[in-house]
């Protein structure tokens, strides 16, 4: 094989090496590369730009295969900013529940403080509201929406296992009491008429409260019908 050496210039060392490969029509591994000048883009790529210069020669068989490593450090320097730049993933740490909710409320225009309490089977976040009930919403829908979003955000990475329950102005307790009252009234009606009665669609938590009311009632039984958000309870008389 004829030994030949050429000098190649390029904007970067990589570009110069590529040119040399094309010149010899050989892969990079078969060339011996000597860097003469690393080149620089100069100030803002305008002033004082210097072209990279290399000397390339075909590797002869007795040459050490490790030779090419000489220019290796130069290569990563060209590549690193590009490859990491496109791949940045801002991995979020576990979202602490109370500060997350406070941030959420603040952006809603309700900068109320939140108190966090660790319960046996759930974490209770109590919003110290202004008594207007605006955070509760019709049938508790705003409070439930907030609770849903907080659960989704905090439980996302799976580190926190406990369910998060939101409350404000003692709403949960009041809701439970009125639900029990309503269920008992409906129960009486079913016993009187001996016909099943259907309640409005409710979430799992509320349905559970109603099921509990009739748990020990021998004359009545409860079932849930429907799917998802439309699931509702039917109170039925027990057939003998």
């Amino acid at each position, binding site marked *: 094989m004829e030994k030949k050496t050429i000098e190649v210039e390029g904007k970067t060392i990589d570009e110069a090496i590529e040119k040399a490969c094309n010149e010899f029509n050989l892969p990079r591994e078969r060339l011996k590369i000597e860097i003469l000048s690393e080149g620089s883009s100069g100030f803002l790529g305008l002033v004082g730009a210097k072209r990279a210069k290399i000397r390339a020669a075909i590797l002869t068989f007795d040459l050490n295969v490790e030779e090419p490593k000489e220019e290796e450090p130069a290569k990563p320097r060209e590549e690193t900013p590009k490859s990491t730049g496109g791949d940045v993933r801002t991995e979020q740490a576990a979202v602490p529940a109370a500060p997350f909710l406070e*941030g959420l409320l603040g*952006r809603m225009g309700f900068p109320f403080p939140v108190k966090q309490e660790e319960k046996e089977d759930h974490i209770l976040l109590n919003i110290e509201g202004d008594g207007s009930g605006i955070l509760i919403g019709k049938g508790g829908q705003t409070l*439930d*929406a907030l609770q849903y979003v907080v659960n989704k955000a905090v439980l996302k990475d799976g580190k926190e296992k406990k369910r998060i329950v939101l409350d404000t102005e003692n709403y949960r307790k009041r809701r439970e009491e009125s639900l029990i009252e309503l269920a008992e009234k409906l129960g009486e009606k079913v016993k009187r008429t001996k016909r099943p009665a259907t309640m409005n669609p409710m979430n799992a938590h509320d349905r559970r409260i109603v099921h509990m009311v009739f748990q020990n009632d021998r004359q009545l039984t409860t079932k849930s019908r429907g799917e998802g958000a439309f699931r509702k309870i039917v109170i039925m008389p027990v057939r003998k």
Partner: protein
Amino acid sequence: MKDLIKYIAQALVDRPENVDVSEVAGEQTSVIELRVAKEDLGKVIGKQGKTAKAMRTILSAASSKLHKRAVLEIIE
């Protein structure tokens, strides 16, 4: 309103840097447009649209305080 939706969406998705929210303001009603990475679309919509519905409920509670209306659009 824009900040509110951005705050919620970024907490729900895997790629918060790809969350983009814009607001088309009207006299009474403004439209909030939410864009997320393709693989995060399901996260902001949720099972049977539950997450999207929750965001809309929160949004209407927040805008009712200002005596305004806001509509949330999730852009594919």
